């Protein structure tokens, strides 16, 4: 057992034993890690950590009773920060067990988000499980794919996206898994008024995705969960990151990095760019 897992279990057991938290949300099952909710210090032995701890456990923060501790990678922590910032969770009700993370890998390949990761060490935490080897530099241009799409003429872009959108079966897994998509009733499913076409065809799906991405503007932390769970492999991060880049360029904001900065679409500056207006 690695020193990292050892440390993780020690922290979790300590928190449960002292009564500091009621539940620890972490991963179990070494071969194929999955979320686990632990309430007894003895069970801390179940916790695992490796490069297949995909789930962003922030999704479960509001599903448990009492104070919770959460095992979180850098990208997950940004989602936790978003939930705190938006008043969904109280800072004092969550104990963040940050874990240094080099990358998550699927069949030996690093996930796309991990190639461009700039948070191998979480920015916010209460306990940190350190791993010096995890602190690697980002490998590629984080927005290469976005620029590639932008370079196409608009009709080609439409063809490109419609080709992908026609595959979408509107299972809403991308929405369900997203820690920041916590609306009780989603506009995608409202029928009075019916804001969007609900049938899973190219057009309806395209508008659904514009809506989904726009509702996450300035909130999406690029944890990549939406893309990972999509059964038909739609590159959803490529939509999200268009907004992430525009927001960083226009308003100098990055989601989930700091707790006391107001999200960009709930505030403004009198001298914001307005080239889009006549």
């Amino acid at each position, binding site marked *: 057992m690695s020193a990292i897992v050892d440390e993780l279990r020690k922290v979790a057991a300590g928190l449960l034993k002292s009564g500091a938290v009621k539940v620890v949300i972490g991963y179990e099952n070494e071969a194929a890690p999955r979320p686990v909710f632990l309430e007894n210090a003895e069970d801390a032995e179940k916790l695992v950590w490796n490069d297949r701890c995909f789930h962003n456990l922030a999704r479960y923060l509001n599903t448990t009773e009492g104070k919770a501790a959460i095992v979180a990678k850098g990208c997950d922590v940004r989602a936790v920060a978003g939930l705190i910032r938006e008043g969904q969770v109280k800072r004092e009700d969550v104990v963040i067990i940050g874990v240094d993370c080099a990358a998550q890998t699927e069949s030996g390949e690093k996930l796309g988000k991990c190639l461009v990761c700039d948070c191998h060490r979480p920015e916010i935490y209460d306990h940190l499980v350190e791993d010096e080897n995890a602190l690697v530099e980002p490998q590629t241009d984080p927005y290469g794919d976005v620029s590639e799409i932008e370079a196409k003429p608009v009709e080609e872009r*439409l063809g490109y996206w*419609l080709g992908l959108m026609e595959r979408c079966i509107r299972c809403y897994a991308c929405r369900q898994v997203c820690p920041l998509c916590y609306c009780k009733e989603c506009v995608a499913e409202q029928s009075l008024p019916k*804001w969007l076409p609900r049938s899973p065809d190219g057009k309806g799906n395209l508008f659904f995705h514009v809506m989904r991405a726009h509702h996450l503007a300035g909130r999406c932390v690029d944890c990549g969960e939406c893309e990972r769970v999509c059964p038909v492999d739609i590159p959803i991060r490529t939509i999200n990151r268009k907004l992430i880049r525009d927001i960083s360029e226009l308003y100098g904001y990055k989601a989930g990095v700091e707790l006391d900065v107001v999200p960009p679409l709930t505030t403004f500056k009198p001298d914001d760019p307005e080239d*889009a*207006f006549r």
Partner: protein
Amino acid sequence: MTTEFEPKIIAFLCNWCSYAGADLAGVSRFNYKPNIRIIRVPCSGRVSPMLVLKSLAEGLDGVLVSGCHPGDCHYAEGNYHTRRRMTLLKKLLDYMGIDGRRLQLSWVSASEGKKWADVVNEAVEEVRKAGPNPFSTNTKGSSGK
């Protein structure tokens, strides 16, 4: 044989400035293109992105959102929020292949009847360049047939 494509545009105007500006354009008898259908809203900040998306999904060729100039909002800051929200939406639409020119944005005050006429004329030309809404079920567009 070919009639020029006449875009159909829905315009959301804030009650306090742009709607009054459009009214002034009428009273002053400024001519402008008849391609727009106006809906009055309390503030440009009232224009949810969903109104824009629904308009486009229903097949309208363009959407115009117009409010008070920054600093002049009747509700102090509604239009500042509009500015961020609509700027990002326009870019996102364009990225997704829905020509960004379909979303037209302007500031028109109650005293700018002439500017209103110009804004409409320019917006119509921009949307005309973007062409008929590819999602329109009326394949003839709104070319008067």
